[in-house]
């Protein structure tokens, strides 16, 4: 436990908040409990096993100010425009420096039973829903950043899909940084409740155009009712000087399906915790991740597949492409609790190192307390395969083009699995530009469609 004395940030700075009038007492209570929790534990230290591969000093030693609400400037509008799904989104909520921006958002025409609201609106319209679920999954003792987020908790998004309702078009939550002169912090919060038999596609985009230093400290809670289906994507393209820390906590009910794709392209330091609890039998989780970084970027993905019920399959594939002096961390924990028989879990981590200075640290962690289970994991890290390069060159493909093609194909193994069109398109365009490949190149030209892609 870090003593407060070691913590250069006095809690009063973090929690310096205009005390909003009108917040319900349960929310005020949650905030103060969370703030107390954070005061008690402080930031994780590098001795903490869960955090030892990520240097938090650049974050903990920076004097961040809670970002003020500002009228959206040109930069915010442009960034929002660049990352907007436009007509592809059923609804799109835009947050600028953590604040909901009604002018840039689109509530859309949602089918009956589907609600997309900002947190304040949700507390007003359906306090029971919010109170019942908020902070129940990502609890304040999950990690210090969750406590910090909950202690300030002010703005965010609430999605509710009632029993049996379905929405095919993605609901897009767009969090953008519009910069500022001083280092600023915001703590976005997302709560998605998808009731029994319901379906939804949820996309979180975190994007920055700003030069300034900032920290996004996000917490997302997703609740999947029995036999529901949730497709979740998280695209992180923070600016080069941005820090991103996020916890995504998912609770899966009986027979539900959760498919998650995360892509990390931006940010100076990123730490993602993605925890999925399979609480009911026959729940199925797919966690795929793609990390494309270079320079001095650092990305740490911690995932937990918590098999808390029997008969649950889970699949996990994380791919890293590291260039420059980038560092990648993947810690994939699979926990099979007592009694969770017939668990079938497969985890794969693959990293491609494009430079001698890039470093990957990949760790599986399997904790199995049931005896009739199937758990496999595999991890590979290495440079571009020279035999493959030679093969392509021997057919006339130039050396550089061969390397780009192989790198693209490595990453495309993840993107082609993404069914959310605007997310896949954005990633393909990003990758094509990165590799000097034609912008109109689509995975169907390049890719071979294997069974895995069809099934996931």
């Amino acid at each position, binding site marked *: 436990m870090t003593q407060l004395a070691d913590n250069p940030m006095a809690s009063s700075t973090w929690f310096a908040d205009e005390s909003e009038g009108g917040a319900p007492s349960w929310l005020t209570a949650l905030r103060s409990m969370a703030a107390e929790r954070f005061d008690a534990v402080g930031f994780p230290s590098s001795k903490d096993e869960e955090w030892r591969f990520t240097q938090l000093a650049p974050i903990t030693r920076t004097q961040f100010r809670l970002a003020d609400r500002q009228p959206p400037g040109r930069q915010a509008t442009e960034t929002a425009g660049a990352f907007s799904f436009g007509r592809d989104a059923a609804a799109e909520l835009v947050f600028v420096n953590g604040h909901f921006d009604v002018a840039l958002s689109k509530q859309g025409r949602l089918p009956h039973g589907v609600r997309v609201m900002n947190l304040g609106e949700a507390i007003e319209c359906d306090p029971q829903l919010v109170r019942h679920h908020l902070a129940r999954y990502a609890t304040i003792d999950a990690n210090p950043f969750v406590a910090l987020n909950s202690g300030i908790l002010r703005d965010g998004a609430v999605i509710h899909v009632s029993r049996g309702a379905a929405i095919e078009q993605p609901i897009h939550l767009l969090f953008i940084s519009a910069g500022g002169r001083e280092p600023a912090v915001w703590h976005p919060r997302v709560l998605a409740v998808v009731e029994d038999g319901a379906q939804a596609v949820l996309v979180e985009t975190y994007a920055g155009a700003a030069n300034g230093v900032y920290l996004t400290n996000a917490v997302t809670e997703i609740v999947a009712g029995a036999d529901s289906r949730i497709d979740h994507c998280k695209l992180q393209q923070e600016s080069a000087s941005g820090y991103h820390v996020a916890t995504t906590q998912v609770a899966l009910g009986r027979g539900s399906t959760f498919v998650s794709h995360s892509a990390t392209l931006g940010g100076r330091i990123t730490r993602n915790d993605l925890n999925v609890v399979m609480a009911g039998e026959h729940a199925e989780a797919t966690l795929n991740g793609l990390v494309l970084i270079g320079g001095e970027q650092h990305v740490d993905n911690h995932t937990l597949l918590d098999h808390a019920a029997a008969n649950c399959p889970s699949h996990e594939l994380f791919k890293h492409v590291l260039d420059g002096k980038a560092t990648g961390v993947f810690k994939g924990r699979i926990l099979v609790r007592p009694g969770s028989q017939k668990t079938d879990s497969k985890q794969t981590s693959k990293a491609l190192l494009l430079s001698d200075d890039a470093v990957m640290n990949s760790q599986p962690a399997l904790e199995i307390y049931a005896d009739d289970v199937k758990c496999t994991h595999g991890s590979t890290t290495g440079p571009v395969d020279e035999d493959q390069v030679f*093969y392509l060159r*021997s*057919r006339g493909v130039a050396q550089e083009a061969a390397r780009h093609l*192989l790198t693209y*194909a490595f990453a495309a193994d993840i993107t082609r699995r993404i069914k959310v069109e605007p997310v896949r398109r954005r990633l393909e365009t990003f990758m094509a530009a990165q590799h000097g490949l034609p912008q109109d190149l689509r995975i169907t030209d*390049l*890719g*071979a469609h294997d069974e895995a892609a069809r099934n996931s």
Partner: protein
Amino acid sequence: MKLPLLEIRNLHARVAAPGGREILKGVDLTINASEVHAIMGKNGSGKSTLAQVLAGREAYEVTQGEVRYKGGDLLELSTEERARDGVFLAFQYPVEIPGVSTSYFLKAAVNAIRKHRGQPEIDAKQFLDLVREKMKLLKMTPDFMNRAINEGFSGGEKKRNEIFQMAVVNPTLALMDETDSGLDVDALKTVAEGAVSLQRPDNAILIVTHYQRILQYIVPDVVHLMFDGRIVMSGGRDLAARVDTEGYDWVDKEVKQLV
């Protein structure tokens, strides 16, 4: 007088690593357009290394000698430049490339060659026609074009894919490295017939093989025997027949008598 298509003089090559072993120890070989040559030899004699060095594999370093191709210095060219100028290596162990379809890859290869020749990119219809014709030649199923290159292919399928690619790019100098190994009789026949159909007055085939089986279908004009990094004997088909019945021991003995 017409120049030979390929002329190798005193070629020495070693494994490109500090203290790398010398594998080619003075290879001399001349191949004219329209000819089929076979290089036979036992494992470790250097025959596959020769094919790889000709294709430009950087795992080997040429330390001495020269290679003239179409009258120019082949060793000056990068692997891809050689390919664009008509050199094709059918691999002994074709590489699997997940995520890249054969169709995409072949189109890239064909266009790289066309660009080199100053031709425009091949249009979709033309490419499809070409590919269909060659697939028929090699008796391949259409789904194959959309599969990742060699991924999950059997050994035989991979070899067939090599000759299929060779048929599509239509090379000037085809280097077939142990194409026969791992093929059953039917597949060998199909593959060999595919190769034979590519013979033209202006191109040549060099077959590297341990066994003479494939030479029943692709009849060589000249057979060379390779031993310890050099070609020690050249002759007609009868040389291949002798290897088939007697193995390679007699070559060892005769070479040792010469030394």
